[in-house]
């Protein structure tokens, strides 16, 4: 078992395109780390550099205590699950899983023991003799997982492994991956663009954008205290509402002339300066309790079953409110929203950084 350490890792492609701009990150032994971000943010490149499939332009990657910059993928003691599974189409499921062990000269009976064991864990025992094309997407996914676990590697790498599955299967496999990782206790690095997957799977969530890390933390921390406006709008669904506001004084801002109290606000902000006010759709209450309220013009309602999404405008900016079904009449045209000062996030309009209290 080993952790993974990245030290100012850079990737520069031909033509001076910098895909990864000096990323430093420590992934503890046995933890589940998820890299999340929009496409082109460098998360897959970073994962492929850990795997050894991309050269490292600068910085160092360590697996355990060993710098692996110049080590071949085969010698890094890692296993990878690819987005398209990358199963060997001409080999049976058994041979697919045994291939890596055979290459390493593992004794035959040991190979058989490990493959059978992995097949049992993943419930693919009935398919061991089949070719990958005779399997469904979910079964192929399991074989790809099986191929990774039989090797008992130091680190698992997952490159968007669930994105080719349908929604229902994705949720099911997500739970299984989490359970498997807990049971095996192997350090895992998982890349996805799906923030729900990222939140549910990770012990350590890494939000990336433009080749850089925006924020690292537990999923709860990242959700509760996003460090940048990008993280605030990327993590959470539906995304956080951002309203243009003005600093009124310590702990007070205004949105379109309506006062809002804020708990987490940096001291010494000049009154009258512009500020961005972030509110999660699930954090505002339709009602008149409390002393900060906002009025909203409702355009339309989206039904989600258990909840409803009210789309409209607050102070001229797009705004979404999530409410339990039945709480509000569907034909509501105007809402008064109570805002808990604890739930207000402030961001600098220029730097997009959080303007919370200094810790």
């Amino acid at each position, binding site marked *: 078992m080993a952790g993974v350490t990245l030290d100012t890792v850079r990737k520069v492609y031909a033509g001076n395109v910098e895909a990864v701009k000096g990323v430093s990150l420590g992934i503890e032994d046995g933890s589940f780390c998820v890299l999340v971000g929009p496409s082109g943010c460098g998360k897959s490149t970073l994962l492929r550099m850990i*795997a*050894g*499939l991309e050269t490292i332009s600068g910085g160092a990657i360590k697996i355990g205590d060993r710098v692996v910059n110049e080590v*071949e*993928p*085969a*010698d890094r003691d*890692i*296993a*990878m699950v*690819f*987005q*398209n599974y*990358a*199963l*060997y*189409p*001409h080999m049976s499921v058994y041979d697919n899983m045994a*291939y*890596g062990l055979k*290459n*390493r000269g593992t004794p035959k009976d040991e190979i058989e023991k490990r493959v059978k064991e992995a097949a049992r864990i993943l419930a693919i025992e009935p398919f061991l003799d089949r*070719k990958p*094309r005779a399997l469904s997407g979910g079964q192929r996914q399991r074989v790809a997982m099986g*191929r990774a676990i039989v*090797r008992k590697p130091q680190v698992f790498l997952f490159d968007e492994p669930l994105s080719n599955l349908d929604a229902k299967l994705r949720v099911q496999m997500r739970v299984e991956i989490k359970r498997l990782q807990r049971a095996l206790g192997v350090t895992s690095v998982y890349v996805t663009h799906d923030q729900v997957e990222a939140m549910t799977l990770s012990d350590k969530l890494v939000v990336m954008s433009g080749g850089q890390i925006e924020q690292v933390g537990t999923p709860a921390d990242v959700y509760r205290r996003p460090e940048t406006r990008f993280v605030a709008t990327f993590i959470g669904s539906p995304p956080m509402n951002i309203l243009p506001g003005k600093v009124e004084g310590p702990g007070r801002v205004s949105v379109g002339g309506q006062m809002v109290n804020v708990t987490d606000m940096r001291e010494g902000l000049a009154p009258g300066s512009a500020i961005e006010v972030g509110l999660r759709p699930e954090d505002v209450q339709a009602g008149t309790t409390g002393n900060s309220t906002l009025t909203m013009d409702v355009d339309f309602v989206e039904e989600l079953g258990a909840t409803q999404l009210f789309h409209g405008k607050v102070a001229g900016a797009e705004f979404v409110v999530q409410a339990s079904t039945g709480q509000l009449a569907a034909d509501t045209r105007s809402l008064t929203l109570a805002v808990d000062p604890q739930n207000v996030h402030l961001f600098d309009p220029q730097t997009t950084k959080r303007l919370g209290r200094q810790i």
Partner: protein
Amino acid sequence: MEKRALFSNKLLPYMLLVPQLIITLVFFYWPASQALWQSFLLEDAFGLSSEFVGFENYRTLFQQPEYYRAMVTTAIFSSAVAVLALSCALLLATQADKKLKAAQAFKTFLIWPYAVAPAIAGVLWIFMFHPTLGTLARPIKATGVDWNPMLNANHAMLLLILSATWKQISYNFLFFLAGLQAIPKSVIEAAAIDGSGPIRRFWTIVFPLLSPTTFFLIVVNIVYVFFDTFGIIDAVTGGGPAGRTTTLVYKVYADGRLGGDLGGSAAQSVILMVIVIALTAVQFKFVERRVQY
């Protein structure tokens, strides 16, 4: 499954097929039936009269030792060219598939020989290897080898094999390269992570995945050597020395055109036709069943 376009017009599909059918009828079925009919006839040397002789032409043919020798020559020639042309092309294609800076130029240069007509290719090679005129024959002779494809049957065969191979490599190369590029990159990467070195990776992953291409090319190459090398043989050796490089297809020409034995020549054509139909049938059966992965 993709949806197919359906024509409601009953006549249109047939109209669209007509040009293709006419070409096949005129250029294949008609001559083929003529050859079949001719193979049962015996014609006098001046072409003034002909007589139905049944299987007489076939019987004479199978009593000729020259015919068996042509079979052996064809077998040696075709297997040598197929093996050489396929392996060289595969080697070149694997190199071109790597990320080379000059990959595009490399590909273009490799494809050129395919555009050269067989007879011209033959003339080109004889210019290089002619025992007295050849530019490359001198250095060969300087090493002490008594190089003479005009008199030495082995030398003549070697020269034919080389020139026929040279011409066919381009074609094989294109198919192999396309086959290689169709293999998903992630499968190769997965194998690399699974601890398989480049050579092992090639034999356990790449080569098996290329097998449909390889089987297709084997059949195409054999058919090529059987028929399309006529021009090369005619230009380089003319079937000589002493008929030792006469392949089946060259013998059809030599006996019919030069020897005036139209019936015997037609009988040989019919046999060749049967061989090729059999080969193609085997290919389709094989490709459809075993090779699909």
